């Protein structure tokens, strides 16, 4: 039965965006939102993406007993979960392990960066013809925002080529910071009224614009026009809210906190994510590092991993202290893991057969390890988790039914996730 459905799905994925269809705007307006049932366990998400494919072995799935060509040159350390070891560089993460849920049995079959990234960002296998929405856009579409801030923000730039709104209206696309918050000069551009324009004058400008715009918008309809309108409305409401604008001001954090997270890209981005979630952003997606270590794998890991570890440890502790972890899910992921055996250039290559993701908060179990990889971290040994399962789990915690159908162009119904099922074992 399941298989039959897959056939139909793959056939759908072949479709072009052509054919007769409502304009996107009309379609999305026509779409009925699912009635909220009980309060879902999770309200918002921080997605930490490690582009290039981080080695699971050098993250949270070390194999100290494997032969050295598999084990690699790094050691492992104890964590706050008895009997569970992480890479030796994961010192701060090890301390908060009792608040994490580590999945060591992620698996898919896409070994190319863009295809693997597509899997993890959208929960869908890439299609030759249809562009799927990212999880961030989908969540914006389904749940909307929690404040004046945009529901979906990417830190610092678009996290990946598949972080956009796909077949949904571009109104559900992310807001990007446009710069690294770690920079001293960092400021989100154009968030303040220009010199010489006070509140009063701005109010008048808005009235003028509304009057001038009405002629045009009454006459034309197109997805882009509707999307631009929604962005202007969003911009106005953000500009009217001191809290919203202040959320982007990372220098409002005290020195102790900044040092705790680390004064570098990893630290500043994760701290920014916490500020944004606190101010009511629904989905923050941030990227850090470049992990495609075909050569000099260990050297690169040594350079990039400690800042990640420090920032991530600080983020989890901070969210927990502020009581935000309960309602905020933190997800650390990458397009795939890396090969079990170290190659001749002291590197590891692409490996989607098994890899790890880290979750925390938002109603997932704390101090839990789900699934295992085999002795050399080459295949899932137990409880494999697919990108579809992973997406279902995140959506379900947010109260979004993965089987709900949305309308893609051409009046084509597509389920939010194609197959897969939420991983019950990791839900608290």
């Amino acid at each position, binding site marked *: 039965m399941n298989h039959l459905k897959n056939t139909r799905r793959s056939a759908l994925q*072949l479709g072009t965006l052509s054919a007769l269809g409502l304009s996107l705007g009309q379609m999305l307006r026509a779409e009925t939102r699912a009635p909220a049932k009980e309060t879902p366990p999770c309200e918002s998400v921080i997605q930490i993406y490690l582009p290039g494919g981080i080695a699971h072995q050098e993250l949270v799935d070390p194999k100290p007993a494997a032969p050295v060509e598999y084990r690699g040159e790094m050691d492992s350390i104890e964590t706050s979960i008895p009997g569970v070891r992480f890479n030796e560089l994961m010192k701060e993460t090890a301390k908060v392990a009792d608040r994490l849920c580590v999945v060591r049995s992620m698996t898919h079959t896409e070994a190319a960066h863009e295809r693997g990234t597509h899997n993890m960002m959208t929960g869908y296998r890439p299609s030759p013809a249809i562009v799927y929405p990212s999880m961030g856009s989908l969540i914006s579409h389904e749940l909307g925002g929690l404040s004046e801030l945009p529901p979906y923000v990417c830190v610092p730039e678009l996290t990946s080529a598949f972080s956009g709104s796909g077949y949904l209206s571009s109104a559900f*696309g992310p*807001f*990007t910071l446009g710069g690294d918050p770690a920079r001293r000069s960092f400021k989100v*551009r154009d968030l303040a009224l220009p010199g010489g324009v006070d509140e009063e004058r701005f109010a008048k400008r808005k009235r003028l614009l509304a009057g001038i715009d009405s002629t045009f918008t009454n006459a034309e309809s197109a997805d882009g026009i509707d999307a*631009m309108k929604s962005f202007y409305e969003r911009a106005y409401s953000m500009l009217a809210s001191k809290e919203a604008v202040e959320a982007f001001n990372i220098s409002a954090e005290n020195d102790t906190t900044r040092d705790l997270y680390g004064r570098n890209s990893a630290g500043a981005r994760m701290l920014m994510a916490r500020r944004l979630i606190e101010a009511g952003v629904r989905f923050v997606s941030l990227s850090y590092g470049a992990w495609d270590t075909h050569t000099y794998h260990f050297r690169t890991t040594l350079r990039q991993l400690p800042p990640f570890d420090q920032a991530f440890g600080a983020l989890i502790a901070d969210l927990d202290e502020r009581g935000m972890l309960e309602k905020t899910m933190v997800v650390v992921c990458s397009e795939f893991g890396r090969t079990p055996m170290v190659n001749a250039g002291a590197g590891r290559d692409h490996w989607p*057969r098994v890899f790890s993701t880290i979750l925390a908060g938002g109603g997932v179990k704390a101090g839990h390890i789900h699934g295992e990889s085999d002795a050399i971290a080459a295949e899932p040994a137990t409880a494999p988790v697919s990108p579809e399962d992973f997406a279902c789990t995140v959506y379900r915690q947010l109260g979004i039914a993965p089987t709900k159908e949305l309308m893609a162009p051409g009046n084509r119904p597509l389920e939010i996730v194609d197959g897969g099922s939420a991983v019950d074992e990791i839900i608290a």
Partner: protein
Amino acid sequence: MAPNPMNRLLLILCAASLPCEAADVTFYPPQIQLTGARDFQSFIVYEALENGLTKDATAEAKIAVADESIARVEGHSVVPAGDGSTTLQVQFADQTLEVPVQVSLSDQDDDLSFRLDVMPVLTKTGCNSGRCHGAARGKDGFRLSLYGFDPAGDYHRLAQEMPGRRLNLSRPEASLILTKGTGVAPHSGGERFAVGSESYQTLERWLREGANDDLSGVAEATDISIYPPEAVMKSKGQGQQLVVVASYSDGTTRDVTKLSTFISNNDNAAEVSETGLIESHNRGEAFVMARFDSFTEGIPVISLPAEADMQMEIAETGNYIDELVNAKLRKLLIRPSELCSDERFLRRAYIDIIGLTPTEDDYERFMADTASGKRARLIDELLDREEFIDLWAMKLGEMLKIRTANQVSYKALLGFHNWVRHQIANDMPLNELLAEVIRAEGGTFDSPATNYYQIEANNRLLSENVAQSFLGMRIQCAQCHNHPFDRWTMDDYYGFTAFFSRIGFKQSTDPREYIVHELDQGETYHVVDNRTVAPKYLGGATPETDGQKRRSVLAHWISDHENPYVATNLANIVWAHHMGRGIVEPVDDVRISNPPVNAALLTELASRFRATNFNLKELVRDICNSRTYQLSTQANQTNTEDLTNFSKAAVRRIRAEVLLDSLSRITNTSTRFARLPENARSVQIADGAVSNYFLSTFGRANRETVCSCEVDVVPTLSQAFHLINGETTNDRIEEGGLVSELLKAGATPPQIIERLYVRCYTRKPTPMEVEKILASFESDDLESELHDVFWALLNSREFLFNR
């Protein structure tokens, strides 16, 4: 395969009490050739009704074989009875069609062949698909080549990797291939076929016959044909059976309908069953494809509302473009929108042809012209402007990835950009321009087109780039496996790459310059068996290259008028630029499973383009002079839902460069770009790596890839913030001093408002609009009040969109 004219009759059906209804009846396949005792051929009788609908009339036709000792009809198939020729008599109403039937080797029942009989079963049942054993590392310990691109390897893995397990010759029914395939033994893929099914019988018989590999020289499939050519049905529940016939290298044909995989790209409009039966659902268009071996072919299917009036008169005509667009619209029962106003046309033509909005003078002049034919005259005038050349130099710069990089100095890059611009300025045929790039040799300073090889030196990526931007095709998948949704095989991929296997580089005296030349050796090796692959045109012949430079041979093919892809691809790119959407969309993803929305239109555009010797201006002239280009954006009752068939003009956000250049001109300001003179426009930037905040935020291509998707016109929140608070609007309104100049010259606020409207929107405001604005003035500071008006005009979506 062209239908045999013998089978194509115009039948006049006259019932006593009803008016005559003319219909066109065709029998498919056009002839029947049966080889061997097991052979058979299914058929359909297909009726094209005068009202545009088509019908599967097979069940209503009476079909008999003239000589029953040669062949017999069983259901909707013909089977052999004895060697010889005969005809099939097809009776439909009171007309008769005759179809030739040839039968040979009718008493010969050969052993089954691994390649011809078994491999198709493994594909049809999905065993070798990417989700199952066709995955790069196989599935559950068993691997097959994806869609069967490596039959020898597949035979080895089936027969020899685990002797006696996958194939059990002493007890065929205990072979894993049967027990797993039927789901009798635990199988992650479940039941793929039932015990006793045709697939089962084929595999079982092959096992009983000894499961032998083929001897060398077994015939290969060379092509497939799918019938009928199209289907137009009323929605919900109408049916049309498909017939798929494969041709083989030994001259035989075979009915592979049962062995093909069928896919509809829009199940919502038309679904297709595993056996090739199409069923119409809701109103819409679908493309239904059949895949067999490495071939995919498809037919367009239209599903129309059941209650619709089947007549669609479209009275207005323009040039050949309109005729072809309207022909498709008639089938869809869609009426095109009205013609747009002169003001709209003026703004649209300026933006599309020269990349700028019209000035006040341009507006006054065009609106004052009352003579007929003024739109055509404007198009001619714009085509002669320098800005037209700049715009297309930019577009080609994107296709050719002109951008500084480690190995590409600015000097070399600028030379390349100037060379491209120069060729366009001199009306060089576009096919020749591309061919010059392909054959380029010499120093990157002296012979600037050679920079193409400095920008991308990896010959695989290079051949992928050439395929994508010159031919509009993405062949990347075929590097590792035969393309699942297209015709490209690994042989095609490596054959095409082989043209670029002999590029040599030498250092010149200037450290920034390299010399690109052709080596006399260098080969491409196939990744499966490491054999040397000879250069082969994509989808074409394997040319003689001995003693010739491989790239010169390829350049010849690129510029050849017979080349099947170049003219179509370029015509589609030019079309998409003006219409906001390609006939194939995206423009650089031509493949069978992404068919043109209007194939006849694309074919005709390409053929006219060839006829004008690939003249860009002539093509633009034809497109812009069509009624289709000049349609309004306003929908009528029939075309509100149509976004793809060019029945109304598309509303598009103006691309980054055009928006910035227009904004600069409107505000009397300029932007400084690295290495460009003071008043340069952003369209003129030679280097993809040069950008600024405005351009990046509004989606300028940085030319890191050749993908057409790099140019992004999607609105974002950052764009809104920038226009509201950013320097591009606020600072420039002040800096340019336009308002104060006009005030100084004695213009009144209503006059100034009118002029700002013309500058920004290419139209005058209505008295109501002026009144409303004036009523909003709160202070005596006219300059400040008018600056606010200017700000609002630039922030309105009317400014940001081309419509």
